[in-house]
């Protein structure tokens, strides 16, 4: 099966600019996750979708981050405006049913904010 696809692979922007990341999960996977991974740390959950509804977004900085899952398939994560501390790898993952089934991760988008 095809894996989780993410784009772009790398992005460099200046602070206060906006940026968007795209994720295409594995076909048929109901649950989609966005994680933020700062260098040297473990992934931190930003938002979890079940189909096109939000299960949890308690750690999403809603004043600058937004995410949507279109028709329960693809998803975009946007940051506007970006801050220096947003420099990180943004990982998208999907699972068949929920967190009771294994997560499949994409290779991430590495964001550098200068």
């Amino acid at each position, binding site marked *: 099966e095809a894996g*989780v696809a993410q784009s772009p692979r790398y992005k460099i922007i200046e602070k206060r600019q906006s940026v968007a990341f795209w994720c295409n999960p594995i076909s048929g996977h109901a649950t989609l*996750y966005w*994680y933020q991974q700062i260098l*040297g*740390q*473990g*992934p*931190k*959950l930003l938002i*979890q979708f079940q189909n096109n509804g939000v*299960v*949890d977004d308690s750690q999403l900085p809603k004043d600058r981050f937004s995410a949507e899952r279109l028709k329960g398939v693809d998803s975009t994560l946007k940051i506007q405006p970006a801050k220096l501390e947003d420099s990180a790898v943004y*990982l998208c*993952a999907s699972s068949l049913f*929920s*967190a*009771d*089934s*294994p*997560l*499949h*991760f*994409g*290779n*991430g988008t590495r964001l550098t904010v200068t």
Partner: protein
Amino acid sequence: SQQGEEDPQALSIQEGENATMNCSYKTSINNLQWYRQNSGRGLVHLILIRSNEREKHSGRLRVTLDTSKKSSSLLITASRAADTASYFCAPNAGNMLTFGGGTRLMVKP
């Protein structure tokens, strides 16, 4: 949600030796999952162990779970240089996975 905490933070061994990583968590869980991450890549799922299971094997991997102590361990036997990676445990409580800081394993040839 709750986070797993891995111990040690870093581990360096020789090829052929066994590597043991530990994970502790705080609340009741549905299951606990272990993942591997190679540098510059996404995480790869290794093993899922359910709360009513005590031990699970997959190839050279052995995972144990002690719900009374709220702890789990991952054992990699006969390690290879290709096992060099970061390893994360992720307790699943309330249908959400949260990851700790990981154990960085280096296997020297």
